[in-house]
């Protein structure tokens, strides 16, 4: 016996040998599952963040549309709409789109060099709200209705559609995450059963020398927890690298305006602190799932053979 052993640095060898557990394959599988879970989680988080931001932006703006009506002076109706809107509490400002701005809006459909004076098209007043909750939209709507040819557009239908789409993506993401976790659990069950069969001799010997099922399950659980932690950490790290790489690629490949536009519509392709914490959470959940699933499988196996 070496001196090192005698002075207390000695640790007994593991009862379940590391090489007897299908460790590398299982670790790779858990790594892949964790990566998929984290990418799904990150994607859902980005969509949700963008949808919330977008919905909030859209909710802060109303549009008054004023159509030209025979016998009415369009410019005076515009001024009336602006003054009515500005009198409503919660409205920060109201301003009419200039003819140039209106032309710019129609340019994609009607082409450049448009002269609006030739066309009988409605004019728009943009109403920006300082506090969407405090603004009395119903009152504004009824007052605007008093102006001939005027109507108020609250974008409510847009927001409902946007929220529905974002909600569908979030629910789909949760469903995908759940399926990945179930698939992971099933893979762990099969791997654990295989390991138990491979180590049946060790299990029998432990039983014969008086080991409790709890002790035996603990020995196997320890092995699987390590595999789960290592595989999960690798998968989580790969996901973080993926998000950083995709974010950098978008910035590098796309011209600045397009990148900014993409950022406006879909949010910045960056996870932020919440995303990183979420990925750490996914890793912990997968490691815990590995440990718990293997423990339950081992205990069930032990009960069956007892």
């Amino acid at each position, binding site marked *: *016996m070496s001196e090192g052993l005698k002075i*207390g640095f000695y*640790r007994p060898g*593991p*009862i379940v040998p590391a090489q007897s557990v299908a460790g590398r394959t299982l670790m790779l599988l858990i790594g892949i599952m964790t990566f998929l879970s984290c990418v799904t989680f990150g994607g859902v988080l980005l969509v949700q963040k963008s949808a919330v931001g977008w919905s909030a932006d859209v909710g802060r703006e109303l549009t008054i549309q004023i159509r030209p009506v025979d016998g009415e002076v369009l410019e005076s109706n515009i001024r009336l709409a602006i003054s009515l809107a500005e009198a409503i509490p919660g409205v920060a400002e109201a301003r009419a789109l200039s003819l140039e701005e209106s032309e710019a809006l129609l340019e994609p459909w009607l082409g450049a060099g448009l002269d609006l004076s030739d066309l009988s098209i409605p004019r728009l007043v943009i109403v920006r709200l300082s506090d969407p909750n405090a603004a009395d939209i119903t009152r504004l709507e009824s007052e605007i209705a008093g102006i001939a040819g005027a109507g108020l557009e609250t974008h409510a239908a847009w927001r409902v559609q946007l929220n529905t789409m974002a909600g569908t993506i979030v629910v789909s993401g949760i469903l995908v995450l759940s399926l990945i976790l179930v698939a992971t659990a099933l893979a762990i069950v099969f791997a654990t059963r295989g390991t138990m069969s491979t180590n049946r*001799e060790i299990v029998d010997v*432990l039983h*014969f020398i*008086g*080991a409790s099922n709890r002790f035996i399950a603990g020995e196997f659980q320890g092995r699987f927890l390590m595999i789960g932690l290592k595989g999960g950490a690798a998968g989580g790290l790969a996901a973080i690298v993926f998000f950083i790489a995709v974010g950098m690629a978008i910035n590098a490949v796309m011209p600045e305006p397009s990148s900014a536009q993409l950022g406006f519509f879909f949010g910045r392709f960056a996870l932020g602190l919440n995303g990183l914490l979420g990925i750490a959470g996914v890793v912990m959940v997968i490691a815990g799932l590995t440990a718990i699933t293997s423990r339950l499988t081992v205990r069930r196996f032990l009960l069956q053979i007892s």
Partner: protein
Amino acid sequence: MIAFENVGLRYGHGPEILKDLSFSIDPGSFHFLTGPSGSGKTSLLRLLLLSLKPTRGRVTMFGEDVIKLDRDRLLQMRRHIGIVFQEFRLLDHLTTFENVALPLRVRGQSETSYRANVEELLDWVGLGDRMDAYPSLLSGGEKQRAAIARAVIAKPDILLADEPTGNVDPELSERLLHLFEELNRMGTTIILATHELALLDKFGYPRMLLNEGELVIHE
């Protein structure tokens, strides 16, 4: 210490392997269990090890009816019983020391609390200089002595041995039997299954003869 009353055992819906076994074993006794292959020796040892329950009859150990014991109590009782196998059944990835210490380790004892005892026992069975060796490097005799040391390290009241001399030469068989005698003199009840007539004749302990599931005891 051990009492069997009209005990029968069958696996599933198969034929009865053990039939109407009735006997008692006193504390501190030494019995040979013998009989032809397939006579049910291993099944009887498994009943004695509490890894099987009888399909009929009553088995009393340490004053308790084993049929009525729950899992935890069975585990507690099993810890009073040591077992030695013909094939040694040492764990190949553990050293001799670690194999022998295993029963104490599974009971939650720390390595520092049992190291001296394990070393002393390994010295006693003649493996003091083989503590760090892995089973693959031990001879058959050394493996069996390590297995015996593992079976007795937790000081069991009963030591069961299933053909412990089956894989060693006759000279070593006798030396192993002397080891069992020594343990018996220290108070351990021993039931040793063997079909080696030479050993049965040389060591004149009572014989439990099993034949086609029926038991006859020759005192």
